[in-house]
């Protein structure tokens, strides 16, 4: 099994361009921190499943993911976030869009064990459905056995906001550019977490050209 151990007190930052390389299990020890960014570019189908276990007090895990689908991709992402001890924090942010005839399945569960008090766990999954042949299912879940916790999740599936488009068009931005801006700014909060400036910039421009392509074919 592809496993990753973040030892006590250490900090790990990793960007996975290849979803297949994402470890199946990530264990975060006392006062350690894991920052993981997962990128699925157009044309990538995947069936990802990660278990993240926070096993030492003060551990922190941040998972960020983005997926852009425009053909017949099948993107499946599943995250189980286990808070096993008190005073841990986790954050998950997954954003993506499905066009063409693609299929997106997101599943994410936060499990807070009994006595894992003072847990802070947040999860968000936001989706844009770009075509009427694409389909998105999402199952964000909370399973909580401790009371002194702050946990929340949010999930949306929607379309590009027309008011925003109108605002931009009334200021001389073409509809196509407006859509590009909307979609870029939609996934930007995930890409922001890529720490290396050069890598982030190159990823942004890569996604931008992908998005332009999608809009042209819409």
């Amino acid at each position: 099994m592809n496993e990753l151990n973040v030892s006590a007190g250490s900090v790990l930052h990793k960007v996975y361009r290849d979803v297949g390389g994402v470890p199946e299990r990530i264990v975060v020890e006392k006062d350690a921190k894991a920052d993981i960014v997962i990128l699925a570019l157009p044309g990538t189908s995947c069936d990802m499943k990660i278990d993240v276990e926070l096993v030492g007090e003060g551990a922190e895990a941040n998972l960020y993911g983005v997926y852009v689908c425009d053909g017949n991709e099948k993107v499946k992402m599943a995250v189980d976030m286990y808070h096993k001890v008190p005073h841990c924090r986790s954050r998950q942010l997954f954003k993506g869009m499905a066009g063409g005839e693609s299929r997106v399945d997101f599943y994410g569960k936060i499990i807070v064990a009994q006595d894992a008090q003072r847990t802070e766990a947040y999860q968000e999954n936001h989706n844009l459905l770009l075509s009427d042949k694409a389909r998105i299912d999402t199952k964000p879940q909370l399973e909580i056995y401790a009371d002194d916790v702050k946990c929340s999740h949010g999930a949306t599936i929607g379309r590009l906001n027309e008011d925003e488009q109108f605002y931009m068009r009334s200021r001389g931005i073409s509809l196509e550019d407006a859509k590009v801006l909307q979609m870029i700014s939609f996934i930007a909060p995930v890409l922001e977490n890529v720490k290396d400036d050069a890598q982030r910039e190159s990823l942004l421009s890569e996604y931008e050209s992908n998005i332009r392509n999608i809009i042209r074919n819409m």
Partner: protein
Amino acid sequence: MSKDKEILEGLADKEYEHGFVTDVEQEFIPKGLNEDIIRLISAKKQEPEWMLEFRLDAFRRWQKMPLPQWAHLDIPEIDFQDIIYYAAPKKDEDRPKEIDPELEKTFDKLGIPLHERAALAGVAVDAVFDSVSVTTTFRAALAEKGIIFCSFSEAVREHPDLVKKYLASVVPVGDNFYAALNSAVFSDGSFCYIPKGVRCPMELSSYFRINAAGTGQFERTLIVADEGSYVSYMEGCTAPMRDENQLHAAVVEIIVEKDAEVKYSTVQNWYPGDAQGKGGIFNFVTKRGICKGSGSHLSWTQVETGSAITWKYPSTILKGDNSSSEFYSVAVTNNMQQADTGTKMIHIGRNTRSRIISKGISAGRSQNSYRGLVKMLPGADNARNYSQCDSLLIGDRCGAHTFPYIENANNTAIVEHEATTSKISEDQLFYCNQRGIGPEEAVGLIVNGYAREVLSKLPMEFAVEAQKLLQVSLEGSVG
């Protein structure tokens, strides 16, 4: 904090006030379940042949169905052969038309008047005691407007066309294990038909009471709102305190035609079992409505405080264009109670809208889950859903869980879901204490405020009751 703990514990210790047993002579059929028992139930109710066939078909299907295991519940094994499927209070042979004074007293004690009194003219009641309907009030007044409100058994005899047309049209016989069981053995329940363009002048209500030991209650309710009509329907229930678990498996079907509106409210207060988790009702019900015509509206409001185990998902199929539905729920679990409850919103028509507000409160060692499905089918253009599920934890040995399923296959549909889990914040408690509000009162205040959005949707007759119940259910759980 220790003071808070005492208060919450005090809350939980409060006795279940409807836990008494009525001493009336009752007739039972033998224990167990087989085709002969079903024929016997059908014969007792003097049902026509088609109804018996319906039951037998359901029974044959039920036998082949597996028990549902997917809920986040720990259900002890139920011996379906160890249940009495029909129990009815005996009628006085000299005065068959009159209500047994004992029964009258029982319902009076529960606050359900069986006599039409001027003071309570706003509510018509169908009172169901174990397997039979005792009486239905205000029938004449309702009949003037063409409204049919009677027990299900009567409806089968007197309005077979309507029953045949709508029965099992929303919850098919083989829909799920407990719906199939209900279809095979259902005893009584309410039937309600609101004709075209009629606004029902009073609240309709059913009150279900389990009394006999060793029995199960399997009621069936069917509500049909024809074009442009309106009805507000309320349901209440209680049972005696016993060490055994009793099964309650009901089916409720609601049909809402074009431009009609149905408001369905439940205050569920079955006996929850004692603090050690002994006894209590297993409440496994299937409730579903269909917004059949365009512009129709169905609203569910539920306050769930009772039952040892609750398994219940009032759902709406939004078939008509521009139809809308709402689900407002407060579910409270304490001690060893378990609840897995929520809703399903299936969007089929264009411009359909749904809204889900669920407030869970778990205390003691209870487990409280929200489970919901929002599904946008390809034809649901511009459909819209908003869901909010909040959980409040009181005590460090309880659990609160959220399991939403969101499926979208239409790119013009928008679905939003958010959920939070937290405990009553110490800041809020401190704020109240500082202003001279004691910890217990403060918790009551905060919980009521937390649930207000739902409670405010209840009809007035229910809202007061529900607020009190909330307080009582949480008694002894502050910590």
